[in-house]
């Protein structure tokens, strides 16, 4: 039996309070301008040759915005996927496996994009 005070002190079932809720909002707000930037970057470089697109992405401001997008989107993606899995996958084992896979997926795309952007920036 848990009293309301104990619940508040324990920060809920996950012991993290509203941290995840808030993180999803912070990344959501960040994603709005960053996704607009991504879409503008792509439509202004449709069919661009290799040197042009590489030079564009190597500019520090562009690279920082792209890195910010990749990191913010990966975090947002991981929280969103986890929330959906928790709602619809009821078996405990399947739920844990699905959340693990969602986490690994978000980490994999996030890290691959980050490494690619670092390589492009350093010209290696």
């Amino acid at each position, binding site marked *: 039996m848990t009293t309301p005070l104990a619940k508040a002190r324990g920060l809920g079932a996950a012991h993290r309070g509203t941290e995840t809720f808030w993180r999803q*909002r912070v990344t959501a707000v960040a*994603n709005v301008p960053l996704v607009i930037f*991504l*879409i503008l970057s792509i*439509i*202004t470089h449709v069919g661009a040759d*290799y040197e042009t697109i590489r030079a564009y992405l190597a500019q520090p401001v562009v690279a920082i915005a792209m890195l910010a997008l990749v990191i913010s989107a990966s975090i947002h993606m991981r929280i*969103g*996927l986890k929330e*959906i899995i928790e709602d619809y996958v009821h078996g405990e084992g399947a739920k844990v496996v699905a959340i693990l896979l969602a986490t690994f997926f978000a980490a994999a795309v996030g890290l691959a994009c980050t490494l690619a952007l670092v390589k492009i920036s350093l010209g290696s």
Partner: protein
Amino acid sequence: MGNSNTQAQRPLSPHLQIYRPMLTMMMSIAHRISGVGNAIGFILLTWWLVAISSGPEAYATVNDFFGSIFGRFLLFVFSWGLIHHMIGGIRHLIWDTGRGLDRVSIEIFAWGTIIGSTVLTVLVWIVGYWLRGGV
């Protein structure tokens, strides 16, 4: 207090089958589907960035794919998913402030998300084709 019945069968969320389909409910589902779609679409962005970091040959391969009908179809769906999820997300951020939760507003937001995301996506593609100078 002291309820011995705490292990009773409680309803699980959300019971999709028992609701009459409504636009606002469909939009909630669409927001989740577009979210999952964007996660999958992120593979396209990853492929594109990794190809650029790898060299001209890899970039040519990814460019050929994105230029194909199927590639363009995937990119169109991805762009629509991103824009739809963005507008739907802004709607959620407005709701987080406690505003726009009345019956009229939620209907307006729902239609605004559908129409706004579709119009914006088509506009993005028109501008894209125009900047490229044709199909």
